[in-house]
């Protein structure tokens, strides 16, 4: 269970990016966080694994307070938090397998990491997960030889290798074409179920958020202004979140091609 309370992040003396944000995520639910650029989505996600230092507030993961952890304790907490990035953040010049095994870096020794002598069960797990997402045959290919969708799968598998207790995804589909981004969203949705893992997804595309997640959180100027089921997310909420801010209209409203039949009607948006 992830509990965020009164989270504030301020860069320098500017206006805070996050203003006393509260959020609780329980069980294995897939939560999407929507909002315009600069609303604080990415900052919030990065505060959870402390890639960004929160200014004040509290973040608890399964009872552990994350905000004041340091050094080794912080690293041990981080390995329980998987993260998937917008730009995939793979190490281009290494092979897919090395990228995947990098998810175990928090567990293995420096010697094992440098010589790539990972424990057998890590390698087993890597193959199993890679087969699950369909990239096992690329194991010895260089990461930059893969297509965007395949690269993001590597990113997802790397995060899962950490045996995470929660998965954070920062705009996981923003660098992908519409078809591929749907596949990635579906993958995240089904993996969350299979592994009973809570997943937090920052996403720009409201239609995809509604189609693939169970709960939508809307942020604007660092404050939560919507929290509810996709069914309740209507025109009002959309205006409240994006109103007055230039929004890429098509991207937000265009329904994913295959989900229109699954009950999300255009009229609703």
């Amino acid at each position, binding site marked *: 269970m992830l509990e965020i309370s009164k989270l504030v992040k301020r860069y320098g003396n500017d206006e805070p990016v996050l203003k006393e944000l509260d959020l609780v995520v329980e069980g294995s639910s897939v939560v999407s966080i929507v909002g315009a650029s600069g609303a604080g989505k990415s900052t919030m996600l990065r505060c959870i694994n402390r890639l960004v230092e929160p200014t004040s507030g509290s973040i608890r993961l399964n009872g552990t307070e994350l905000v004041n952890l340091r050094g080794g304790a912080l690293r041990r907490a981080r390995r329980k938090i998987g993260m998937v990035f917008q730009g995939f953040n793979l*190490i281009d010049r290494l092979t897919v397998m090395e990228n995947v095994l990098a998810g175990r870096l928090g567990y293995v020794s*420096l010697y094992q990491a440098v010589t790539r002598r990972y424990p057998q069960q890590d390698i087993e797990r890597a193959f199993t997960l890679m087969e699950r997402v369909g990239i096992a045959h690329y194991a010895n290919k260089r990461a930059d030889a893969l297509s965007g969708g395949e690269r993001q799968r590597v990113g997802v598998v790397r995060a899962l290798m950490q045996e995470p207790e929660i998965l954070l995804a920062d705009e996981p589909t923003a660098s992908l074409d519409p078809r591929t981004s749907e596949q990635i969203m579906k993958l995240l949705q089904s993996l969350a179920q299979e592994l009973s893992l809570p997943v937090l997804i920052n996403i720009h595309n409201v239609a995809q958020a509604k189609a693939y997640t169970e709960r939508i959180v809307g942020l604007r100027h660092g404050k939560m202004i919507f929290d509810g089921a996709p069914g309740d997310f209507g025109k009002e909420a959309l205006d409240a979140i994006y109103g007055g801010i230039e929004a890429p209209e098509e991207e937000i409203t265009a329904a994913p091609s295959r989900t229109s039949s699954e009950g999300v009607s255009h009229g609703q948006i």
Partner: protein
Amino acid sequence: MVDHAASPAPRVWQRYDRRQRLVRFFLTLLSLTLIVWAVRDIDIFWPWVWDAPNQISNLGARMWPPDPRRLSEIASAMVETVHIATLATMLNVFIALPVAYIAAQNTTPNRACLWLGRFILVASRSVNTIIWALLFVAIFGPGVLAGILAIMFRSIGFVGKLMGEAIEEIDRRPVEAMEATGASKLKVVAYAIVPQVMPAFFAIVILRWDINIRESTVLGLVGAGGIGVILQGSIDTFAWRTVATILLAIIALVLFGEAVTSWLRRRVI
């Protein structure tokens, strides 16, 4: 449209506006003043200058034809020169890399280390190889060790500066991803930084080796080993025809170095 009647004055065209012309005028004036000052003030006995072409062609005539009698001695001195350059380049890497690491903005542990690293780089680069050689000959006596150390100390600045820049230019995103897995600092370096700077590293070391070959030809002039020792000896004994052989051998060596480096570049990078 331009109203021709309204511009009765003859139109002038000028390449630069007033301020530009003023700046250019003063820069030209400054350069000319410097040149005139240098010509008038320099401590040169002018009749010698008019005689110089004569003297130079005279020396050239005394060098012809090159004398091949000491060729085997010259060849082994050449091998020694290459050894000095190669060993110094190899050893230099062990110092230059840590210095580059602490002198790069994004990896340096703290500001004190940053300035220490920059100081080492500047000190190494500002002192020419031959001055380093002078110093090490004074300390360790004439011989190849002084030469190796001189080349090495000069290379630290070159390799360290370029590697530091390569480290500063890496893609930040894999670093972020590795941190998110809970990897320690050294593991982040091994996974996210080393693979990214590897190509630059090979290119820089190969380039420096090429330069070092050229530099180690002069070490002998101050007694630090290599072909320069024989060159100095032949000049001191006015054996100009042997000098000519040595000069040809140096050209051959430099061309050989260039051929090897371009082959290595094609193969490795």
